[in-house]
């Protein structure tokens, strides 16, 4: 349905950001549907508003009319547009529910899993190691680098170690807050190779502004090469080193501020 609709839509969000996940298309189409419906009403009302301002400006010798707006016919001037707006609301609500179901409620069977741990102020990504299983010894843990295989269905498990964070990947059109004490799951399917930003979208303290990470979407072969090049031990020690470096930097920042 969304594929079909997309052929008639301007694709406003795509002007600035590519669609790198499967459901990005749906969100973009929904955005465009709303833009068209709301934009129509907005332009209409604003145009009418300016017309009235111009038409009924004060001119000498002209008296205003006495209109109460209480008669049935006059009230219809407001009520009929509102029935139409209600209809537009329904036209927005239905695709919204579809998109919401696809993005946040329904989790399709996963090809791959990834564990995302947020903390002040870094992202730690637990990738499945060469054996394809998450949660065992050969997991590859990387800091601020998420490596994904193109065209694979991912399920993520989002956790937080301290405060609230929000895992936001604009090119995926995905955002999910991380809550300490909860594990929140979701899904995405990268469909475009490339390298993009991951941002933290929830205020999480002093260095919230630089809690950036990158997502790398690679083909199967590139990903395997990356896997081979990163032994878990190396990744872990690197993680600790960067993390300590980062914290000490922040301390300095704090002192300066």
């Amino acid at each position, binding site marked *: 349905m969304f594929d079909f609709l997309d052929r008639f839509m301007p694709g406003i969000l795509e002007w600035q950001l590519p669609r790198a996940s499967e459901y990005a298309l749906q969100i973009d189409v929904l955005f465009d549907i709303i833009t068209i419906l709301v934009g129509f009403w907005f332009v209409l009302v604003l145009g009418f508003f300016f017309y009235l301002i111009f038409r009924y400006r004060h001119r000498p010798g002209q008296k205003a009319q006495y209109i109460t707006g209480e008669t049935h016919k006059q009230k219809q001037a407001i009520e009929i547009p509102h029935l139409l707006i209600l209809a537009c609301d329904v036209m927005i609500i239905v695709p919204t529910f579809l998109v919401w179901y696809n993005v946040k*409620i329904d989790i399709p069977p996963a090809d791959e899993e990834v564990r995302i741990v947020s903390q002040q102020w870094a992202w730690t990504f637990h990738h499945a190691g060469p054996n394809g299983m998450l949660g065992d010894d050969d997991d590859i843990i990387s800091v601020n680098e998420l490596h994904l295989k193109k065209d694979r269905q991912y399920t993520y498990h989002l956790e937080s170690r301290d405060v609230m964070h929000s895992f936001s990947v604009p090119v995926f059109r995905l955002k999910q807050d991380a809550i300490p*004490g909860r594990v929140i799951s979701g899904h995405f399917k990268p469909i475009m190779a490339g390298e993009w930003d991951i941002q933290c979208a929830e205020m999480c303290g002093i260095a919230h502004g630089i809690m950036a990470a990158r997502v790398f979407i690679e083909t199967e072969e590139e990903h395997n090469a990356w896997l081979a090049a990163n032994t878990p031990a190396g990744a872990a020690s690197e993680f600790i080193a960067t993390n300590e470096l980062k914290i000490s930097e922040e301390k300095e920042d704090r002192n300066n501020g």
Partner: protein
Amino acid sequence: MAGHKHPSYLKIYFILLALFVVSVAGPEIAEKLGLEGVSRTVLVLSTAFGIAIWKAYLVCAYFMHLKVEKIYAPYILLACLSLLLVFFFGTATDAMFSNGHNWVKSYSEEAAKEEAQSRSHGGHDDHGDGHSDGDHYGEDHHDEGDHDGDDHNKEEDKDSHEAH
């Protein structure tokens, strides 16, 4: 509200007292009869909260004269109460559960219960492992416990606060 006829305040008071006795006795009876499961829950809830609502109604209606007050007042109170329900049920979807659609809380209810039980049975000293990080405000809040046995309390605070 002079001039209105209302039942004797003393009568209402004795009804309230009787209800009060029932509400205290309810759970005790449940204990004595050794009720378990649903019947116990029903008995405790109805004696405790059903009667609380009844008592509140009596106080409102007769002591606060809501029965003879202008209609505005009960409307104000009912509006506030109903908003409370809106708040409760809107919030219940996630604050009231330990797991839901696509999310699960990592807090362990079993461990908490065990810890609570060990505390209730006087075992104040034989629990409390797994304190992840120190209580950063640990020194500030022990004033209340300083009458006697303060060391004991201090221990208790630190343990229980982070021991999940």
